[in-house]
């Protein structure tokens, strides 16, 4: 160290050192100044109030964000900004504007970009922990899209009317729907569509941008139950996800109509594999094939998905972190659903029931949408296997009850 400094500051080098130091200082100041200018460009500078005066009133709120956002955390995190300019206020706006439901506890916050989960981890970590039933900050999430590991997966088509697997993927380097501007959203569309265009064989398909759709195309997509609409739920609109609709939004599907991609709805992409009947194995096979092929195609152009080993795949809503996977069936369980033990059975199997219109709907004719509860902490293969094994069991129980036989011996532990 001493000799280093002696040689550094010897006469001959002094000039060079000073030059370097000056240049470094200049560049450093330049970066700091530019960042500050950029930061101030968007910032409400008329605000000279302490963070405590800006802390939202969450007294009537029942969402996960409100349960964990203390004034101290708010004060600390409102001094921070992600490199893309996303702020804490942007992330929590949806939770502030939507106090929540007495029965359903919504998450109450979203991410505007990948870095949000890190920059605002003091609030995201406890929210993730609660939402995912206990997930420690040091836990690693396993990713496994090897469909060959699935055992069975041929569910009884007498009972299982349809099978579906969906997930989301975000493109690294581009802001997420709550924060992105039109140029970024169009870039997402362009990157994803270039990849989807190259798919072939049974994945050969076509893209339908929302703002250029003909009446006929629109009607066909509605009839196929593929078309998505402008989000009306205030949970989404208050988060800014409906901005500029329908710019850069669209739907891609293969000719066989069993692999579908939504572009720029709630996430950059939502990928869906589905078909009538109970062949969940085939659905998951195609799902993995599609996902893996799209990934290698975007990689060949220098892009990649947002992913890290702690949170798995990064999506807009913390509830979809990890696998982002919902594997489900529409299944006829008119007898079992009337059994008082139904909800308990589902809970034990780590399954969730919904009506056939999707989340927040009621069941019709004893037909239920049954899917995995968990998203984070288990791999795709593990979750799909659980759904397969769970639905197999539910159908067995249903058959027993049909014949008025008891199901006690089948009850999960």
């Amino acid at each position, binding site marked *: 160290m001493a000799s280093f400094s002696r040689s550094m500051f010897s006469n001959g080098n002094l000039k060079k050192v000073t030059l370097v130091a000056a240049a470094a200082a200049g560049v450093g100041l330049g970066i700091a100044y530019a960042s500050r200018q950029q930061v101030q460009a968007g910032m409400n500078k008329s605000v000279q109030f302490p963070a405590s005066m800006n802390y939202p009133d969450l007294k009537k709120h029942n969402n996960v964000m409100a349960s964990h956002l203390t004034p101290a955390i708010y004060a600390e995190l409102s001094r921070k900004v992600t490199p893309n300019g996303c*702020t804490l206020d942007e992330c929590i706006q949806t939770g502030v504007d939507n106090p929540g439901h007495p029965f359903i506890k919504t998450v109450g916050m979203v991410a505007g970009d990948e870095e949000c989960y890190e920059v605002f981890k003091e609030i995201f970590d406890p929210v993730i922990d609660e939402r995912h039933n206990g997930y420690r900050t040091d836990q690693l999430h396993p990713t496994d899209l090897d469909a060959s590991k699935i055992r069975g997966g041929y569910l009884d088509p007498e009972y299982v009317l349809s099978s579906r697997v969906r997930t989301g993927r975000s493109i690294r380097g581009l802001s997420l729907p709550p924060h992105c501007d039109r140029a970024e959203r169009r870039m997402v569309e362009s990157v994803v569509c270039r990849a989807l265009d190259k798919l072939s064989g049974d994945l050969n398909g076509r893209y339908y941008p929302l703002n250029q759709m003909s009446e006929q195309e629109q009607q066909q997509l509605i009839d196929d139950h593929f078309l998505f609409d402008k989000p009306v739920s205030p949970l989404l609109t208050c988060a800014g996800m409906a901005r500029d609709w329908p710019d850069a939004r669209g739907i891609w599907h293969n000719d066989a109509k069993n692999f579908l991609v939504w572009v720029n709805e709630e996430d950059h992409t939502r990928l869906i594999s589905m078909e009538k009947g109970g062949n969940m194995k085939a659905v998951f096979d195609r799902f993995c094939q599609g996902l893996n092929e799209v990934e290698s195609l975007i990689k060949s152009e220098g892009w990649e998905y947002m992913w890290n080993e702690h949170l798995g795949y990064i999506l807009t809503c913390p509830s979809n972190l990890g696998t982002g996977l919902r594997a489900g069936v529409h299944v006829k369980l008119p007898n079992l659903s009337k059994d008082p033990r139904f909800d308990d059975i589902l809970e034990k199997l780590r399954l969730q029931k919904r009506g056939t219109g999707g989340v927040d709907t009621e069941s019709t004719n004893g037909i239920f949408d049954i899917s995995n509860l968990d998203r984070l902490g288990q791999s795709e293969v593990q979750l799909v296997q659980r759904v397969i094994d769970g639905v197999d069991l539910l159908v067995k129980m249903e058959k027993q009850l049909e014949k008025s036989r008891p199901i006690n011996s089948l009850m999960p532990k």
Partner: protein
Amino acid sequence: MIGILHCCSGASLEIASGTILLSLIFKHFRALSAIYPKYPVLIMANLNQKKYPAKDDFPNFEGHKSLLSKYLTADMYAKLRDVATPSGYTLDRAIQNGVDNPDFHLGLLAGDEETYTVFADLFDPVIEEYHNGFKKTDNHKTDLDASKILDDVLDPAYVISSRVRTGRNIRGMALSPHVCRSERRAIEKMVSEALNSLAADLKGKYYSLMKMDEKTQQQLIDDHFLFDRPVSRHFTSGGMARDFPDGRGIWHNDKKNFLVWINEEDHTRIISMQMGGNMKEVFERFTRGLTEVEKHIKDKTGKEFMKNDHLGFVLTCPSNLGTGVRCSVHAKLPHMAKDKRFEEICTKMRLQKRGTSGEFTESVGGVYDISNLDRLGSSEVEQVNCVIKGVKVLIEMEKKLEKGESIDDLVPK
């Protein structure tokens, strides 16, 4: 970094290593997941935007009918995209309302007083067209002298109620699309305290929406005292519904004929109203209340209203610039309603008709809300007298139609 060195001298090992160290620090400066600005940072611009040329961000205005889409050219957008007002409001924010709603007429909202000058290139032609040729070099006139109002009391057999409203914003604070919670709360405090010092027939009380129960809220809305919950697209796309009902409230005098809305579309909306057709009395109380409120705010806080010689009173929506006055009656005109010329007659007399639940609602029972069309370029006195004269004509027409007589000679050319 290394380049600078090579220019200065042959790099010696010490300098090179020092430089490498420095460049590592700078490389990670951006990668360091947060920026720490001086003030609490609220909602910001998307910093990624600068990576993209403006043409990639230009909105798709296909099918849009707004003045925004008519006047915002790609060149203008390129020039103004990266500019922000001193409080950090950007062009993108100002136009979001119009981008999201192709059917809106204006499509622009101001986020602060400076919006009108910083983005004058866009706001000036929109204002000129909307306000019937009010040029950027024109000056607006203010006249709140109630003695100049016509003495005519409108026939109470036809005129159910009379009302005058305007808006006032506090200079130095951001407007509703951009305002943050602490500012909104400061405005609430400032205005409600000033109002609480009013006396005599103006003596009244403040009701905070945060503390009000749903039932009372609905009652006040049904009584036409309280503004609707901000659920319309105008409010939600423009960012004006954020944090509702935080910082919002209503103040009214004991007689319930002088009311102030706090933090709806503007910081304050001041309303004078009463049953019957004595518009002069309504206006007299209106101006008296306005003057006293302005004085109290100035005395207590030193703050003043946003106003200038060119645009008059500065309000959030460019449609309200100038006087910000909407002088209206609820009038029973069931026969006029059936006449195809009703709309045209109103327009010729510089009047606007609406349903009785306010803007964008339908008429119920032949009762219409008739008010002045103009806001900018004529004074308060002129606009109120215009309504009085126009409604008198409408009542004469209604009476004639009741008797089955023709109104042809009454129809304005």
